């Protein structure tokens, strides 16, 4: 009797439990649909292709070298010219930049060389048909050249003028990487001894320019633009020993920059943000405003000194300027009185501790947020107790510039106000204004510091012993061939950065299958690849500015895609977290529902069996 029942077992409980569990089962498709990981299709294959290309070779821009042998007399016969041309080519083709052993900074396929013999009667070219290397013969007929008393600077402008007007090469962006070396016969410049020496060189970097004449009688000058000229004995017999080494040295300078003064290795990367921007933050630090305070009219100084630099660097970097004046900003190291120099001195080895990061609130800029790069350029005005302040070199000499740079951070320069005795009278009067004239030397140092920060030697070093001179641009501080160099460096590093960022992104995406990839990221990656392709196209055509722009865009887009906020949040959401997300709700609820179903089903079956037994 106990095992049997007379009525059918009630199914209400069974239905209730099933009705509870059913919505969970019905919810599964919704669950899968709503938590589906959306992944925009990334062009993995293209990224891999790009990476394999980038690992094999770097983005190299072509360099073209136009060598002009200008002579009024019949210097070379036609076969002689041919042999000279064939002599120059192998020497130059395999040139490497001086300081960097790797190939990163070399040009695409070395130099493209054309040698032109430009004499009064003949005009011979080693290669015909290269439009970009066209050189209009007749330089020696150019009127100004015959004028006496030509300084290097004037001569430089003269050559530029000649080439610019004659070749009608108006497209400035195409001019990158086209260098011209003009070989002049010494006999044209009989009065070479009387070369003007007072080159208008504001920064003073080329101060002692033409004091010494070359012993060997020949003289090499690298100009501000993309010209160099060699004045020497153009004798066919001595061509290989005399001229070819000089030409190759000039070419090497164009390629890798002038020899660094201190021999320090260049920084690999330019101090720029991923999209090629940097903010130059100028701070005037009044260490002890109790003694005297200085103010500046920065707009005026900017217009006079820094805007030309910014404009010149436009292709390389988008720089913006801002300024501030700070008070009560003592330096962090103690200076000592040095009776020998009649000055307070800070030894150079203590300079790493000069910047007082507690008191110098240099980062107050609102523009400094985000990914933009900030370069600090601090002008330190010492107080009366440490006036005048100089830096002391190890060899016991005072520093000429009283400034130092820190790679990637910026630079500091000490401004010792002149004629302090005049200031003493009105100590407590309003702020003294630094005039542009006072600031001139400081500005020169700052531009030199900028050059250092961008990986160029602070000043261009002449070598009068060997008759090797380099003109520097007085206004902008950067010669055009140096800008080419920077563009080349930047294009290479940008492309490498873009490739490595995209590769990291693609491996990240492939390793995290639960990561959401928004369409936006896909778009950015695609545009980045397109920009990289464009950069390679432009590079093949030799357009420096466009190449650098496209490469910069590629790297900046890749960077943006990699640091997209949606990726950042998902990075912290590994698969293990899913457990933590689902368990608090589903384990307590679902577990009970499932257990109830199991219990009820088994109960119902048991009861059903009892009922059947009874029936039988």
């Amino acid at each position, binding site marked *: 009797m106990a095992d049997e029942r007379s009525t059918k077992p009630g199914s209400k409980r069974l239905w209730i439990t099933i009705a509870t569990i059913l*919505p969970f089962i019905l919810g599964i498709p919704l669950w899968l649909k709503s938590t589906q990981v959306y992944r925009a299709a990334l062009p993995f294959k293209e990224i891999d292709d790009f990476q394999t290309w980038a690992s094999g070779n770097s983005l190299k821009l072509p360099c073209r070298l136009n060598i002009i042998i200008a002579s009024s007399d019949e210097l070379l016969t036609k076969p002689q010219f041919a042999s000279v041309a064939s002599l120059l080519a192998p020497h130059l083709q395999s040139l490497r930049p001086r300081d960097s052993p790797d190939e990163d900074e070399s040009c695409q396929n070395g130099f493209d060389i054309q040698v032109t013999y430009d004499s009064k009667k003949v005009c011979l070219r080693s290669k015909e048909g290269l439009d970009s290397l066209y050189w209009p013969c007749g330089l020696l007929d150019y009127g100004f050249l015959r004028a006496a008393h030509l300084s290097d600077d004037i001569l430089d402008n003269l050559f530029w003028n000649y080439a610019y007007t004659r070749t009608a090469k108006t497209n400035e962006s195409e001019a990158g990487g086209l260098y011209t070396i003009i070989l002049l016969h010494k006999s044209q410049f009989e009065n070479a001894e009387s070369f003007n020496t007072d080159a208008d060189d504001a920064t003073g970097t080329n101060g002692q320019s033409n004091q010494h004449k070359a012993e060997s009688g020949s003289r090499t000058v690298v100009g501000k633009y993309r010209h160099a000229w060699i004045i020497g004995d153009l004798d066919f017999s001595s061509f290989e020993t005399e001229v070819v080494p000089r030409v190759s040295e000039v070419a090497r300078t164009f390629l890798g920059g002038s020899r660094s003064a201190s021999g320090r290795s260049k920084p690999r990367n330019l101090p720029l943000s991923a999209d090629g921007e940097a903010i130059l933050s100028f701070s005037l630090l009044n260490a002890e405003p109790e003694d005297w305070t200085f103010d500046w009219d920065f707009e005026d100084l900017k217009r006079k000194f820094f805007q030309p630099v910014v404009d010149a660097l436009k292709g390389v970097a988008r720089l913006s300027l801002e300024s501030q004046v700070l008070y009560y900003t003592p330096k962090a190291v103690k200076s000592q009185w040095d009776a020998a120099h009649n000055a307070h001195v800070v030894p150079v080895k203590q300079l790493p501790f000069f910047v007082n990061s507690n008191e110098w609130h240099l980062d107050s800029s609102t523009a400094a947020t985000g990914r933009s790069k900030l370069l600090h350029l601090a002008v330190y005005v010492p107080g009366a107790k440490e006036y005048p302040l100089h830096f002391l070199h190890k060899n016991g000499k005072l520093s000429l510039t009283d400034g130092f740079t820190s790679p990637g951070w910026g630079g500091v320069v000490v401004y010792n106000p002149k004629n302090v005795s005049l200031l003493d009278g009105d100590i407590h009067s309003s702020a003294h204004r630094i005039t542009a004239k006072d600031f001139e030397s400081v500005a020169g140092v700052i531009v030199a510091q900028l050059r250092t920060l961008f990986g160029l030697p602070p000043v261009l070093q002449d070598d009068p012993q060997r008759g090797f001179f380099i003109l520097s641009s007085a206004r902008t501080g950067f010669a055009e061939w140096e800008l080419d160099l920077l563009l080349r460096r930047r294009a290479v590093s940008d492309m490498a950065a873009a490739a490595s960022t995209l590769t990291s992104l693609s491996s990240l995406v492939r390793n995290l299958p639960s990561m959401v990839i928004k369409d936006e990221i896909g778009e950015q990656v695609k545009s980045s690849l397109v920009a990289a392709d464009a950069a390679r196209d432009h590079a093949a055509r030799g357009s420096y500015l466009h190449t650098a722009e496209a490469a910069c865009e590629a790297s900046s887009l890749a960077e943006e895609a990699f640091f997209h906020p949606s990726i950042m949040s998902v990075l912290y959401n590994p698969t293990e977290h899913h457990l933590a*997300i689902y368990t608090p709700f589903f384990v307590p609820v679902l577990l009970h529902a499932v257990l109830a179903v199991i219990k009820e089903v088994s109960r119902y079956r048991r009861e059903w069996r009892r009922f059947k037994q009874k029936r039988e």
Partner: protein
Amino acid sequence: MTKPIVWRGAALAIAVRFAFAAMGVQEHLGRRVEIVTPLTSLMRLAEGQWFKQHGLSPYAGSAYHGSPLLLSLLGPLTSRGTGGQLLAKFHSSFFVFLVADLLGAFLLQKMGKLVESAHQFYQAELQLDPETSKSAVKEPRGKIRLGIRKGCKGKEVHAKVGLGDLAALSYLLNPFTIAVCVGGTTSPVENLLVIVALYGALKGNAPLAAFGWAMSTHLSLYPAILLLPISFLMVSGSDRPQLKVLERACLRNASDVASTDRRSEVDELRSKAFLPLQWRRYGHFWFFSVLWWLAIIFLSAAALGGHENLVEMISETYGFILRVDDLSPNLGLFWYFFTEVFTHFREFFVMVFHANILFVLVPLTIRFHHRPLFLAYTMVAVATMLKSYPSDGDAALSLGLLALCTPVLSDFRFSFLVLNGYLVVAILSPSMYNLWIWRGTGNANFYFAMTLVYACVQSILIVESVGAVIRHDRSLWKSFEVRVKEESVVKAHDD
């Protein structure tokens, strides 16, 4: 026949409301997150009215999220609120809410009467006498226990305090109802419409039930789930014991008759005992529902000035409820969770949280289809606990409905715990909120702990009342089983 206790209670309720309103309590209550939700806020309604007056969509600026019909009704009252000094203290729609509360209480009283008579009918049908089924059926005792004994002078007066009065008074004098009415929210209107729907269904008035259901769903969306209990009310009438109990009762009555024509006898008795299933009435309900819905849609479109604005309305009212856009703290469980959840899983968990309400519907309906009013209570209570922007007003409604079910809740346990739980939440949640938001010495967890306590109290209340009703049904069944067995034994002995 007037019942002094009801009138006295109603007068007290009105006096209390006026007293609070005159004290200017509205200023404070109108800012409490427990009372005002983004959906029911009168301030937001005034904002919507302002937009509307300036020819903009009332939903501009994501301030107002209610119905355009409610805006048309209450909007004009809010815009000219500043009268005399004393009158300024009454928010001008106060009287609307007062009337809504009184009307709701009146309908609850009526419902109580109907339920009571139905209850007595089934009581008689089962022929329960207190002597034989002491342990099983406790309704009369339960009623006495829950009735207000002290105010009554004699037994006769006490007998007059019926279920309806109890429900009406517990709704009117509930502090939650008072707070919501005085605080300036649209909850009283929404609650009234739910009561109207249930009253209409109980009464068998198809147009009224359809109106209440369509309007309340239009206003606050959640009453949509009341379609199930309303349908059962319309089709099979008020709460009754389980079918098998009634059958057993018929069997017992028919047991004297010869076993051959037992079956037909049973059917006859059954038809006498139960109301026939009212499918026709139900058809009318559907017809009127469609009619009311069409009316609502056209009126809304007219109020908004064009059919093209209906999409915006749906997105800003129902969409706002379902998407849980406003994560400012409230009594519910949504805000805390959705401020923390990963955005990737947000959609999924929004669905899960809403499904919480939906997936108890079918099991509850299977279990309680014979007690549609109690089913309505459980659904309202579940929605109160799990809706996205709950307030005290929802609790007021569910407690009012609970009062209607007191005859079957005699076995209710933990009433002390639940009552104290409500007290704890009512006292501690404002102070926790104060600690977190104004003092800054606490954090979100302080307040969320209170909402968890609130949810726990409500779930205890729901689970316990469901348990009590199940126990009640089971004891009815058991008592018959025992009795039938006894009788059969007696019969065998006689034979």
